């Protein structure tokens, strides 16, 4: 064996008394099969001769280098180094090598790393992205499988492995609440990161569920580092507002502990802490950190396995469960550092985590330190129960879903079909203006060919009273689990739920930056505090009109009660329907007439385009004819993809000077037809679209409206941030403020459809130059006549 010459395949072949080709087949496991006896002979020969295949030559010939690339934002971050270690373990077991690159949270450096990995012909590329869109296209073009870790871009086709950050944060916050804390702060990571947004969402949901504050004074954003955590903690201590804090990154938590030590804050007595990640390091801090542990080995296993298949249109997305590892920093009295192992291996997978009662906390000392978070599992089981139709669970059914939103549901429905292969869904798209009349006509004749219907919530009472819609109150508890209270309220009539809400809505003041600059108008501020008044807005609009804007101002939804109700109510008017069961019209009031004159002037002065239909409005704004434009968030992606890209901004909806701020709310829901012959399957689809985070995320990011599904909401905000980061910097906060403080829903009434029809017509007549007083009086009479039938 001490031959000076390198042993070659020929030598092995001679030794094994076979051909060189057969040796090759054995080494490469193919392409032809080799008889077991021959195979053993070759293997023995390799052993005796000391033959080593040339890895570089193999890479050149076979296109496999045996090297996997991993790019992380910061190798010194304990979580990323633990993740790298777990992946390396996995890769090593397969006899391959891991190349690790450190992008240092820099997109440019990330791009260079990826390029050089591709040049080195890695077999697969794993990465934790820095920004929204990591430059992995190059790798995909080279046919290299790509897997996103930790921070996923759900909207790309790239496979991903992430953990359930939302549930993790909610679970940790619940735990702090169970300890009796009421003011629970969060130290969050950079808000453009998927993980941060999700964890903030979970924190917020848990607080809202208990009616606890989640205001700005409890929120600090900091980079994922010890220094970041330290500074954030000092800021938080200075405010003196929090008695507990959720720190969304372990490195930050070490900084927080240091800051606490430096300022004499005792953890957990003065400040309870729970953090994220759960690497071994968190066990040895003082006090040991209670943490939301990520199952690193599981993540690594999924990641390496996904890195074997090429990126395709429908790549897999894996979401791993997290678990709460209780130690002392949260206030639990656990004396000994007991879990000296990788957290995942200790996990008691069978247990269900529950916020412990107060008595429990002091007692818990020994086993069951880690309980697996099976909230998600429970939800899954629940939907699985619902999935089995009572009659025949496996029978193939085709259901029809009628909606006005073209392209919004396609992806979600395809995913639903994948989960429920026996349910086929046909989507029928009807125009927005006709869907109400069409469903009315078809359900009125007990048409069985509609199973699921999209409904604008104020219309639910009327449809429900007529017996068109299935009462789905049995799902109320599930709705409360995953949807916002406002969303559930929008589908509730007489204490029953008649649909599953999908989104909520709001209106904003969009503006054309170039037209404003041209007129020398300062752009309106984007936050709630700098909200403009209507006078301010229309004065600026008039000024823009004199300097080149064809129109100064426009409502996207022309003559729509939805868009105009906030203006009327801000001017001090009523909703227009009042009295018992909202069946008494009240539109002939002084405030309504004031509004009528205001609305008429808007068009007679030429400030707004008279005679342009709602459907043509977006184009008018996009082609630069309008300076100020009131529309909903559904417009965001559309604007950014138009010629107006980056030349638009958005600000809060104006209010009447001296009046209160009022914003619109509520959006479409999906309901199950009472005449459907496949109600179980139909309800399953409605559930999926509303209650499942995946379904809700998909439709809300397609339609750009915020989901009422709390788990989908952070993903939606993250998506919007990726579309137009600058313009929407304040969007999430503003939306929350509007929803919590300013939103007024349209009146709930069996006569709402009549009301809306008649009032919208009155608005149209006023816009066209009729006398507002006379028109409102006539409409009031018509309404009285029309609504009297319901009394």
């Amino acid at each position, binding site marked *: 064996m001490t031959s000076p010459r390198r042993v070659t395949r020929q030598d092995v072949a001679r030794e094994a008394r076979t051909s060189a080709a057969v040796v090759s087949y054995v080494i490469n496991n193919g392409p032809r099969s080799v008889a077991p006896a021959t195979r053993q002979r070759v293997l023995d020969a390799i052993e005796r001769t000391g033959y080593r295949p040339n890895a570089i030559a193999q890479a050149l010939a076979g296109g496999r280098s045996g090297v996997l690339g991993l790019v992380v934002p910061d190798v010194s971050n304990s979580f990323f180094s633990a993740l790298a270690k777990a992946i390396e373990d996995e890769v090593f077991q397969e006899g391959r090598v891991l190349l690790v690159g450190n992008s240092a949270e820099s997109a440019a450096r990330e791009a260079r790393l990826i390029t050089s990995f591709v040049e080195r012909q890695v077999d697969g590329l794993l990465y934790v992205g820095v920004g929204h869109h990591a430059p992995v296209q190059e790798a995909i073009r080279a046919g290299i499988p790509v897997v996103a870790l930790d921070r996923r871009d759900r909207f790309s086709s790239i496979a991903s492995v992430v953990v359930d950050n939302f549930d993790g944060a909610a679970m940790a916050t619940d735990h702090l609440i169970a300890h009796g804390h009421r003011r629970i702060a969060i130290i969050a990571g950079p808000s453009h990161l998927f993980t941060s947004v999700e964890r903030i969402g979970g924190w917020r949901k848990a607080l809202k569920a208990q009616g606890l504050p989640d205001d700005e004074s409890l929120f600090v954003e900091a980079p994922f580092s010890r220094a970041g955590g330290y500074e954030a903690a000092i800021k938080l201590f200075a405010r003196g507002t929090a008695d507990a804090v959720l720190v969304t990154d372990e490195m930050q938590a070490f900084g927080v502990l240091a800051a606490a030590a430096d300022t004499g804050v005792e953890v957990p007595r003065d400040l309870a802490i729970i953090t994220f990640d759960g690497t071994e390091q968190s066990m040895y801090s003082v006090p040991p950190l209670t943490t939301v542990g990520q199952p690193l080995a599981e993540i690594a296993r999924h990641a390496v396995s996904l890195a074997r298949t090429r990126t395709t249109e429908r790549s897999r997305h894996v979401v791993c469960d997290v678990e709460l590892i209780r130690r002392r920093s949260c206030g639990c009295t656990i004396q000994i550092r007991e879990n000296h192992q990788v957290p995942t291996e200790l996990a008691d997978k069978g247990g269900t985590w529950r916020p412990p009662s107060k008595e429990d906390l002091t007692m818990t000392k020994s086993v069951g330190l880690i309980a697996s978070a099976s909230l998600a599992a429970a939800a899954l089981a629940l939907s699985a129960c619902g999935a089995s139709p009572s009659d025949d669970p496996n029978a193939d059914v085709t259901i029809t879903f009628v909606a006005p939103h073209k392209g919004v549901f396609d992806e979600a429905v395809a995913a639903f079909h994948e989960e429920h292969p026996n349910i086929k869904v046909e989507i029928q798209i009807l125009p927005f203006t006709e869907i109400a*009349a069409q469903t009315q006509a078809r359900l009125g004749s007990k048409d069985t060919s509609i199973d699921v219907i999209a409904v604008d919530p104020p219309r639910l009472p009327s449809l429900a009273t007529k017996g068109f819609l299935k009462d789905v109150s049995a799902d109320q508890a599930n709705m409360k689990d995953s949807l916002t209270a406002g969303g559930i309220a929008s589908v509730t009539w007489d204490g029953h739920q008649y649909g599953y809400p999908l989104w909520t809505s709001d209106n904003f003041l969009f503006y054309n930056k170039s037209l404003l600059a041209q007129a020398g108008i300062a752009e309106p501020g984007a936050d709630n505090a700098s909200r403009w008044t209507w006078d301010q807005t229309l004065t600026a609009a008039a000024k823009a009109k004199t300097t080149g804007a064809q129109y100064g101002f426009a409502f996207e939804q022309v003559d729509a009660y939805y868009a105009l109700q906030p203006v009327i109510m801000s001017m001090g008017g009523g909703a227009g329907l009042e009295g018992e069961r909202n069946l008494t019209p009240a539109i002939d009031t002084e405030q309504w007439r004031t509004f009528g004159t205001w609305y008429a002037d808007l068009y007679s002065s030429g400030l707004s385009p008279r*005679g342009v239909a709602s459907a043509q409005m977006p184009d008018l704004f996009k082609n630069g004819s309008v300076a100020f434009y009131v529309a909903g968030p559904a417009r965001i992606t559309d604007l950014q993809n138009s010629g107006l890209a980056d030349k638009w901004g958005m600000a809060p909806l104006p209010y009447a000077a001296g009046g209160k701020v009022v914003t619109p709310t509520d959006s479409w829901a999906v309901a199950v037809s009472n005449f459907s012959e496949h109600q179980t399957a139909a309800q399953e689809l409605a559930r999926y679209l509303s209650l499942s985070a995946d379904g809700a995320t998909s439709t809300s990011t397609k339609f750009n409206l915020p989901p009422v599904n709390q788990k989908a909401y952070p993903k939606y905000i993250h998506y919007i941030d990726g579309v137009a980061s600058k313009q929407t910097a304040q969007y999430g906060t503003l939306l929350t403020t509007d929803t919590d403080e300013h939103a007024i829903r349209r009146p709930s009434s069996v006569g709402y*459809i009549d009301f809306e029809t008649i009032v919208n017509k009155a608005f149209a007549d006023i816009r066209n130059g*009729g006398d507002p007083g006379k028109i409102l009086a006539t409409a009031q009479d*018509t309404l009285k006549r029309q609504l009297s039938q319901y009394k």
Partner: protein
Amino acid sequence: MVTQANPRPGPITGRSGPSGSPSASRGRARSRARLRAVATAALFLLPALVGLVFLRLVPSFDAVVSSFTNRLGELSTANFTFLFTDPQFLGSLKTTLLFSLVINPLQIALALFLAVALTRRVPLVGIWRTLILLPIAVPQTVSAIVWGVLFRPDGPLNGLLGALGIPSVPWLVSPTTALMSIIILCSWVGVGYWMTFLVAGIHEIPRSLYEASDLDGATGWKQFLHITLPGIRRPLLFVLVADTVANFLVFAPVRILTQGGPEGSTNLIMNFIFERAYTLSDTGSSAAATVVLVGIVIAVVTVQFRMLPGKD
């Protein structure tokens, strides 16, 4: 009907039997032949009759019944009482009658003028006729949307008027001009279609009549009055009746462009019926309005038949 529609196999009915007198057997054969013809006819008519019964008569009967049924399901005239005290219905009735009074003479006169003009020796006559007929091939919704853009206050029509120095017209956004705009749109669609029937009628008139009258020194106007007009009496009657009915039933442009506004000025009766039935889900009064509409149409058409003389 179904039982009659059972034709016997040919050999048995087609041949006279060896027994019986020749004349009797001939008579029997004739009646059998007639029976067979009736049966065949019935068989061919069956699909149409079934369609007529189930798609026309049954729904019509249904509509009449529901027009006389109140919300509690009792027989009553409440729907009609409601209608004839409803300012909106009365308004839409008035609007519909005004619309018919203007649009029918206008469309027929235009169609007649174009028909006469395009049966003269005009260069490229085929192309002109095709262009005039083309709008009928465009779906009504599409033409309504196109005209919606044309009619916009900042749209191309006003642009054209502006270029000619004419002040712009508010078209669909003013109660004084909206109905006129709908009339323009409907005529753009309809005139070419009605013209086609009249063109065919004019071609039926023997050329010799014109030649003879030429020799007698008749002018073009006289020829039109005494030859063309009487010659196309039958197609003209058809156009008059069909156009009147069609214009009572105008719906899509109104629904798409104005929804009956501004201030009810274009609220044609079909739009009223649709809105009551499908937006406000008041089937009773919409059925009643439909019955009223059918009554009006039958009355008007009857008068038209009477007005045009000629038994054939």
